[in-house]
């Protein structure tokens, strides 16, 4: 009789849970075609294949970092909202990301992390802040042509290759700057007038005639001077004099002691504009995706912990306050220990969730960094469907993932039973 009532549930469970697991385990012992038995080969492959090792390393980083950060943030938010006036509004805002689908969140963060400051909001903020404190240069990207008297030096600077004696005029050609981006003050370049015997004069100009005409390293009529460039006269590694070019690109040093000088155009003239951080590159991709994950899940942790917080007996807190405990002591010695069961449930739930993370990684990481960003769940999909079509190896990863998740599930189940 009892069995009769259980039967529908059992049949459903069997068809939807037990059968797929058993079939995956069976399938995992066959090769890609599904016809050849390969035993444990697909399982050893998880530990030998470079991509799945990266996936394992990344999953480990995720499990170590994400659940604890989310739990701690949730705890902080929960405790803070007890004390602020607009608590409900604040909670609603923090919880709101949970209402957005993960796919949509992934798309949002793909844009947020975009490298181009015109598109990615984080880099837009970074570059704005950076440019507020250090102005960008006027001539980023200038290059010295091979065969010109200038050669690149460390820190975007250019130096002359040969020494120069006072009494000489030097031509310092630069190229690689769009003519349209020159300052309005720039006028036609001219060779600088000859200097006095104790001086060095010269011209810094854009040695490029539109359409490719003109003679290289020669001031041609259509070419413009580069105004406002700092020029240093360097002797024995030390700048002894410094000047700035005029609208026609000319500059002049006077009253230089006798000796040989090299001229230096310091890097400040040519510093490339700050481009922000390459969030979607191979080195920062995992932290970047974890950031998106925290944005989504902090609200979940906060709501559960806030519920636990509301259930804490107030009299204990009051008693401690009467005894003169500080707020920090209250938090550490009373609130956290009393919340421990809730915190553990939140943490373990997040661990299970993090082990399965797939959508965020799949969407945020561009194809070229997917190998560096991959986690076990994503790798399982990539191996089974992402072109390799090796569903044997994919099933093996699924079973492996299942084994990793099951301790956490058993832990949660046991807690439920104890609480009952």
């Amino acid at each position: 009789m009892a069995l009769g009532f259980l039967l529908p549930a059992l049949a459903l469970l069997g068809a939807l849970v037990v059968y797929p697991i058993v079939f995956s385990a069976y399938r995992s012992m066959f090769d890609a075609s599904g016809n050849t038995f390969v035993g444990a080969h697909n399982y050893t492959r998880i530990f030998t294949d470079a991509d799945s090792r990266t996936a394992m390393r990344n999953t480990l980083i995720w499990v170590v970092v994400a659940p604890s950060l989310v739990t701690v943030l949730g705890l902080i938010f929960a405790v803070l909202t007890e004390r602020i006036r607009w608590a409900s509004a604040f909670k609603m805002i923090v919880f709101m990301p949970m209402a957005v689908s993960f796919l949509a969140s992934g798309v949002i963060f793909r844009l947020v992390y975009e490298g181009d400051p015109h598109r990615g909001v984080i880099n837009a903020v970074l570059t704005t802040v950076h440019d507020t404190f250090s102005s960008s240069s006027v001539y980023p990207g200038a290059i010295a042509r091979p065969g010109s008297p200038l050669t690149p030096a460390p820190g975007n600077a250019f130096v002359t290759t040969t020494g120069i004696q006072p009494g000489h005029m030097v031509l310092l050609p630069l190229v690689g700057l769009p003519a349209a981006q020159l300052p309005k003050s720039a006028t036609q370049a001219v060779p600088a007038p000859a200097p006095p015997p104790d001086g060095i004069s010269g011209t810094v100009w854009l040695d490029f005639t539109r359409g490719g005409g003109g003679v290289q390293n020669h001031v041609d009529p259509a070419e413009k001077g580069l105004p406002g460039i700092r020029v240093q006269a360097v002797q024995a590694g030390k700048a002894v004099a410094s000047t700035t070019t005029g609208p026609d690109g000319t500059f002049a040093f006077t009253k230089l002691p006798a000796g040989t000088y090299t001229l230096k155009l310091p890097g400040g003239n040519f510093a490339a504009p700050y481009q922000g951080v390459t969030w979607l590159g191979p080195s920062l991709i995992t932290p970047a995706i974890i950031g998106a994950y925290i944005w989504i899940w902090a609200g979940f942790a906060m709501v559960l912990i806030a519920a636990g917080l509301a259930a804490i007996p107030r009299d204990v807190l009051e008693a401690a306050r009467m005894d003169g405990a500080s707020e920090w002591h209250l938090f550490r010695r009373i609130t956290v220990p009393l919340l421990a069961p809730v915190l553990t449930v939140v943490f373990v739930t997040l661990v299970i969730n993090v082990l399965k993370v797939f959508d965020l990684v799949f969407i945020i990481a561009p194809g070229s960094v997917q190998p560096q960003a991959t986690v076990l769940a994503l790798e399982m999909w990539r191996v089974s469907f992402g072109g390799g079509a090796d569903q044997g190896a994919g099933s093996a990863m699924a079973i492996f993932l299942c084994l990793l998740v099951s301790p956490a599930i058993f832990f949660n189940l046991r807690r439920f039973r104890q609480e009952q």
Partner: protein
Amino acid sequence: MYMKGLRATALVAGLLTPLAACGSSSTTSGTSAAQPLKGVKIEVAAKWTGVEQDNFLKIAKIFEGETGAKITYTPTGDSLDTFLAPRIQGGDPPDIAVLPQPGLVAQYAGQHALKPLSADVVAAVDQNFTPYWKNLGSSGGTPYGVLIKAAYKSTMWYSAKAFDTAGIQPPQTWADMVGPASQKLRDSGVKAPFSLCGASGWTLTDWFENVYLSQAGPQMYDKLAAHQIKWTDPSVAAALKSLGQAWQPNQVAPGALQTDYPTCVGTVFGKKQAAMVYEADFVGTEMSKYPGADQDAKVFPFPKVGATQPVELGGDIAVVMKDTKGAQALLKFLASAEAGKAWAALPGYFSANKNVPPTAYTDAIHQQLAQTILKVGDDARYDMSDMAPAAFGGTDGKGEWKDLTDFLRNPADVAGTQQKLEADAAAAFK
């Protein structure tokens, strides 16, 4: 897009109804003879969307008008295998599937999921295609598929304005393109000569294939494509070394590894940070988004690196999955010059059918490309990575795609790249 297609269908159906009524009233027997497939339903699955899908539906309409069959189009999404595998296993595949890679013909033929072409389809293929293209749709000597839509993959797109400013002409040789021409472009103030789409590996494999086809020649190309020679071969080293000249950091617009395919076109014609972008004829549809690009964008053939003028094609191969009369008849139609000409009149289409004349195309660029392909004849080759097993040549972040992305990151590492390519190829080709 789907809605638009639906509305168009409804509209056309509405227009056709009175005509059909007219036809049936005059001679009833004549209609059934003229429409031998009346009432037959044919399902076609392909990954085309947007304009590509609309254009196919227009061609399908011609077939429907001639035969009375009804074609349903099912878009598969990006991952064709994810779509097809469950339907094959469930015993309900589409009548015709359009495979984006010849490698998949062998894969599905191995799973006994394909039906051989009927005799009249094979006759149509023989009449309209050279043996090389016929072989691409075959597996184990049995013809299974027809290359119904090609992409011409040996085109460099460039900004005429940037070339004018720098005072250069489209380069004829690789050495000129990566040497003096690049230097002049940089001098003129363009940030970099080339815009690369390195966020995904597929455009990078096309770069490599053009260089290799030109430098090592078509015979070596076939051997490497079939993995009869190893990727550690000196010819591969030479090709990578040449490729490295174009992929140096100062040759490539910044952020190439985070730039995906459509965005890299914008780097040249929208943001104007580079002067050239390499990809197939279909860049044309992409660049039309940017104001003024239709005046500014020009094409020159991928320059010779070695002795051969490289001509590389990609394309979609239609295969029969359910052996019905309708499916075979539709394939025969799609293999014909008639369908090729009609399709060529629509934008964004290129045909490998030798009986589709250059005049069938409406724009000058496609006419020029069609002429080149006739001139090259048997030396044209199909995209190598698309012929390889998908695990090597068709997966984001794996195999050749990943190895060439890494090479773009560090173009000095020729030997290391070769070793990684060979290891991945050996694993995929076994």
